């Protein structure tokens, strides 16, 4: 049996490619490593996509022109992007809403607590898994064949030309079944490698053992490895990942959005030695939460402890895990396993340094410390009202940047030459556009834009070849 298009991966990017290829009348096979209930990679955990638009539409609250989008991208990546691909992606992000809606995806206004994204980001009604369900329904109706619990374990590539692949079904069981599959084109859409701890160790050493992975455990980078070994041009490096500080009690994998903690700006953060290590009130939390993953990753044991008091307890988004609570700082320190003296000293030093001011967490207020190192520049209020609360922070990795280089047709480059029949979309190539930093909802947009291109180009390359034959 020969397929026209073999797609590795089963998330948004893969499904967009599958749908577009199938609409051109091709036979498409999706190999999804996860079982059906856990399908969709990190798309399961997403909630929106960032789309350019010239005017609001009732759900998006106002215009978000391509130029502003591009400015945002340049700012967060510090220019670490392929300008041609970036501009094309943001231009075509204008089509994303209509495209997804036509596949059955529905949208809702920005969620409670996320008003800052209401203008720029289109939220999926029911979240990413609902969005995936719609894409899978559409793909199935178009005749796309989906094999779950099936991963791509080998690919035959000759000078950048895809010949076929080896699939392994039931790979998590004791009786995996291998099968050679012939396909005329290949789309690599299998995500990053953030769930492959051994691979993370290549960049981070033993500290990687203490990282939590926020997304799917199935992003182990197998397809990325195969592609790089086959000679695909690499982009990004092995030690690059996006991480945020999440609740230390989160599961090793798949904790998703609810492991987020928004209390850092209201308190102080201590490391295992009981020392503060960064300005907790540097800027608004949506602009800072992304750096705290790396900050905590650099601390001993890759752990941090937020301490707040009663007056801040209800000021942030409710957390899924309850805080550790005690009526005294010493008691709290004992409960979280820190040296009581050192915590007492750190809290006292902070409290003494707090200057009088008017607390207002909706502006850069004048509550700050004086003579403290590191300082807390906003929202600094003495921690003195019991009961005191503590949350444990650990680095939670969202995605990795390393991937393979593509051109504007989503073709993978081999020594700078575009492959005739290998395409890539999604996290596995997002580093072309998002070389560093983070812009909420951009990943889904890259996956959708390049998924469509990959699917259309794969189908087109077939008809061209058929015409030539």
């Amino acid at each position: 049996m020969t397929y026209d298009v073999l797609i590795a991966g089963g998330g948004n990017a893969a499904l967009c490619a599958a749908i577009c290829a199938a609409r051109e009348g091709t036979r498409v096979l999706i190999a999804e490593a996860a079982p059906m209930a856990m399908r969709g990679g990190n798309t399961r955990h997403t909630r929106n996509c960032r789309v350019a638009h010239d005017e609001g539409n009732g759900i998006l609250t106002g215009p978000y022109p391509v130029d502003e989008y591009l400015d945002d991208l340049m700012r967060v990546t510090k220019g670490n992007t392929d300008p041609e691909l970036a501009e094309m992606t943001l231009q075509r992000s204008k089509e994303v809403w209509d495209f997804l809606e036509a596949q059955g995806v529905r949208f809702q206004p920005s969620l409670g607590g996320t008003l800052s994204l209401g203008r720029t980001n289109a939220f999926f009604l029911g979240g990413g898994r609902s969005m995936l369900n719609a894409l899978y329904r559409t793909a199935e109706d178009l005749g796309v064949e989906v094999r779950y619990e099936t991963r791509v374990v080998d690919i035959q590539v000759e000078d950048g030309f895809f010949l076929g692949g080896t699939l392994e079904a039931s790979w998590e069981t004791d009786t995996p079944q291998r099968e050679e599959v012939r396909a005329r084109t290949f789309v690599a859409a299998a995500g990053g490698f953030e769930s492959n701890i051994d691979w993370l160790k290549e960049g981070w050493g033993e500290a990687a053992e203490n990282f939590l992975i926020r997304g799917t455990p199935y992003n182990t980078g197998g397809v990325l490895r195969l592609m790089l070994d086959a000679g695909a041009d690499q982009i990004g490096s092995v030690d690059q990942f996006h991480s945020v500080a999440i609740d230390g009690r989160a599961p090793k994998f798949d904790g998703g959005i609810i492991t987020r903690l928004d209390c850092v700006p209201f308190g102080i953060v201590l490391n295992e030695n009981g020392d503060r290590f960064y300005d907790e009130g540097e800027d608004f939390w949506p602009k800072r939460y992304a750096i705290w993953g790396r900050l905590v990753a650099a601390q001993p044991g890759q752990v941090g402890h937020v301490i707040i008091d009663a007056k801040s307890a209800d000021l942030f988004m409710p957390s899924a895990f309850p805080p550790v609570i005690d009526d005294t700082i010493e008691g709290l320190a004992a409960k979280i396993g820190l040296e009581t003296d050192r915590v007492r000293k750190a809290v006292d030093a902070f409290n003494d340094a707090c200057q009088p001011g008017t607390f207002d967490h909706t502006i850069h207020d004048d509550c700050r410390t004086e003579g403290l190192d590191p300082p807390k520049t906003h929202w600094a209020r003495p921690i003195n009202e019991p009961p005191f609360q503590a949350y444990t922070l650990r680095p939670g990795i969202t995605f990795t940047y390393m991937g393979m280089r593509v051109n504007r047709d989503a073709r993978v480059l081999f020594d700078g030459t575009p492959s005739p029949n290998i395409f890539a979309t999604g996290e596995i190539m997002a580093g072309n556009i998002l070389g560093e930093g983070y812009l909420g909802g951009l990943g889904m947009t890259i996956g959708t834009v390049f998924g469509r291109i990959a699917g259309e180009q794969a189908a087109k390359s077939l008809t061209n070849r058929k015409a030539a034959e």
Partner: protein
Amino acid sequence: MSRVDLPSLATAKQDEVARQMTICNACRYCEGLCAVFPAMELRRVFEGPDADYLANLCHNCGACYYDCQYAPPHEFGVNLPQAMTELREESYARFAWPDALAPIFARNGLWIALISMISVAGFILGFALWSDPGALTASGNFYAVMPHNAMVALFGPIFLFSLFVMGMSMRQFWWSADTGSRMPVTPRALWQAMRDAGKLRYLDGGGMGCMTQSTRPDRYRRLFHHFAFYGFLLCFASTSSGTIMHYLLDWPAPYGFWTPPKLLGVPGGLGLVIGAAGLIWYDLKRDDALPPKDKTGMGPAFTWTLLALGVTGLALYWLRETPVMGVLLALHLGTVFAFFLTMPYGKFMHGLYRFAALTRHAHEQATHTTTIATAPTEGRTRA
């Protein structure tokens, strides 16, 4: 030794809903699906009464289960439709009046089937003992079998008793959800709740349809519910119009097909049959993940009762001039009697509690002063 305040302790099912709601409240992806999630966002902690309220606000459309990134086999095991259905069924028993009759809910299907059978048997026996044997088979005249006054004397008190009991249960349900101050029942909230209930606004997966069989949404469940609900209302209106005609207009039965009792009753009966049969058919294909783990038979008892009410009523309309009239009348009156008697002790209550929950929801959404907490963010108004 201090006494334990038993009512204030949360039940295991309340705890489970509270656990899941805590996860949902940190996620909020399902915000646009129904009323439960906006109501949840007004709270930070979920006490037992909050859980009862939210569970009864849930219409069980199933969408959030299929949309949930934390649904089983994820270790967080979030399955709100199931947890809330289990808590709803438990809460019906807790709000039952008098308390002594609460156990009826635990084996609801069995009880309602038994009561219905006894009731029908009672009518057959009664007719055999007291009515003219000739009237049973051929007369076409119901009152020759059972005099109008006897019907009123039997059905009137039991209907009024059930109304009273349901009122007591509703009162308990409403008051228990009041934490702190009493929430008023405003005309505005009632009107909003009537519109939401009348349209089944929240039995729709946020606009995509229910998902109770698979990840493919459909609108059958809402459609059948509309048939059953409006059919039921028409039947009730039919009976009421008959009562008015009998007592106020001095126009006793039988009524021709052009009269209000028939014009309302026949479509009503058809609606009941189509709706109840549809719901029974639809539930056969239900995903096993969604129904409660403890099978009380409450749902099937209710849908089958509605089907029996509709079928026996329509059969009586078409076959009243035939020899089976007496048996059909016993079947119909027996079913109606059992239904009246068990209304406060079965699934019928779901409509009342859900309406109360919708009223509370409408009021708290219109008046809440809680600002949804967020981290320091530009441009948010201050709480």
